[in-house]
């Protein structure tokens, strides 16, 4: 059962994105001056990889099997080890190159990025069988916002830069972790879903319950 669920995962996407992240992060480790730019991009790619772990092309069949969303999501969460291992490898390479990064904060940022990608995928999975593309794009745009828009960088920082002023990235990531845990719990909870997170599209739900007029 576990093997079958894992085998059906979007492994090419997860592995490909993790591989791309290793290449980008490797450049960040090799060129210390570029580390604070390339490592956030690497972590963003890992978040996108995490967003693809829940893709299920056969969702119409799988979603009606007795195996519930909690168990399916739990099994698929094993795939998060791939981006996590890739991120750990990049951080290890940076450490071996003698880079002076705040390692605890960088590790927290890595975990936060990956959990954010997974949480967004969990939420989108309640609406579609293949949330990877939409969730990945949303996560990439959100995580790159501080790099792309300087006005956002004044208030939010997603990667700990040594010696830089402004808000700490730890605060952001602890908050994100807490919100992600709640979002995952709610989205895989099935019956406790809020109305806007229903597994059945609203249009289909309306058609399923025709009103019968009394004679």
């Amino acid at each position: 059962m576990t093997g079958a669920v894992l085998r059906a995962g979007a492994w090419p996407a997860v592995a490909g994105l993790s591989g791309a992240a290793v290449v980008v992060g490797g450049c960040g480790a090799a060129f210390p001056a570029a580390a604070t730019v390339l490592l956030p991009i690497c972590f963003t790619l890992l978040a996108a990889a995490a967003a693809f772990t829940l893709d299920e092309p056969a969702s119409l069949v799988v979603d009606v099997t007795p195996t519930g969303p909690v168990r399916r999501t739990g099994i698929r969460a094993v795939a998060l080890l791939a981006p996590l291992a890739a991120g750990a490898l990049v951080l290890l390479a940076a450490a071996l190159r003698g880079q002076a990064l705040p390692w605890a904060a960088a590790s927290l940022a890595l975990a936060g990025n990956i959990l954010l990608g997974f949480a967004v995928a969990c939420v989108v999975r309640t609406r579609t069988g293949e949330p990877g593309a939409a969730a990945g794009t949303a996560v990439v745009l959100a995580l790159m916002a501080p790099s792309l828009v300087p006005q956002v960088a004044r208030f939010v920082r997603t990667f700990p830069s040594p010696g830089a002023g402004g808000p700490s990235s730890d605060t952001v990531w602890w908050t994100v972790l807490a919100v992600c845990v709640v979002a995952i719990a709610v989205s895989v909870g099935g019956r406790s879903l809020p109305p806007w997170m229903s597994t059945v599209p609203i249009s289909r739900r309306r058609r399923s319950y025709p009103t019968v007029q009394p004679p």
Partner: protein
Amino acid sequence: MTAALEVSRPEAVARRATLVPLAARELRRFVLNPVFLFAVVMTLWVAWSRAGATVTEIDEVNGYPAVFLGGFGMMAAYWLSRSMRASEPVAGVTPVTRPARTAVLCAVAIVPFLCGILALLGFLRTYPLSDAAYGPFSPSARIAVLVGQIVVPALGGPLLGVALGRWVRFPGAAFVLFLVIFGWVQLVTILTISRPDSAPIAVLRLFSPFAFFTLHADAGVTAWRGSPWFFIGWQLALCAIAVLVALLRGAEGRVRTRIIRALAITGAAAVILLVLAATGGFTHAVAA
């Protein structure tokens, strides 16, 4: 000869009658794409929010239209070209060939291109060419820098998105490419800061759809080596390559042969223009 013209003219009219409505429809879909709308709004917002701010060098501000209109435009065009993938078995039997439909998709790049021109005009109004933020470049080179950093990326991004959508199945390819290009530009810029006079690093810096040309240091604005005019040529060659690669998908027979031949010529031109861009202009970093 006359007979051939008589036959070809109605054919051309009929082809135009088919392609124009298709182009109008794709144009409408692109303009209403939420990612593109977001890109336009962000370009306007960044321009508005930085209007009164002091700018020490133009590269502080002129990368945003490239990121939003070019980068986000690439994602929008990618989705646009992928959106018909599921209905390809039906669309594939219509009289309009796949290369023709691809050409129609490429035509939507006119919208971000026009937005890029408007952004350039707005930029020139805020930062006139006489501004010291442009560094030691001549007035014509200043125009070339702006066109290469604002207008051409806005055209090239969506064209690249169409090519990507035609060839790559992976649904996240657009944002991966966006991140890779963004990371590459940052990496080579940082390398250039440490070695501004190096010719190989100048080639690496210009081997990209977007490149920075100036840096503000204690001595003032420094212009890096390279020719902005030849860089525009290199960028336009990349645009042509993107269109040809997109058209190649589904092309058959003589059309395919012609596209491959054109691709080889454009590729050679691109290499020559890249070399000229790296070796032309300033041959070393020049401070204003």
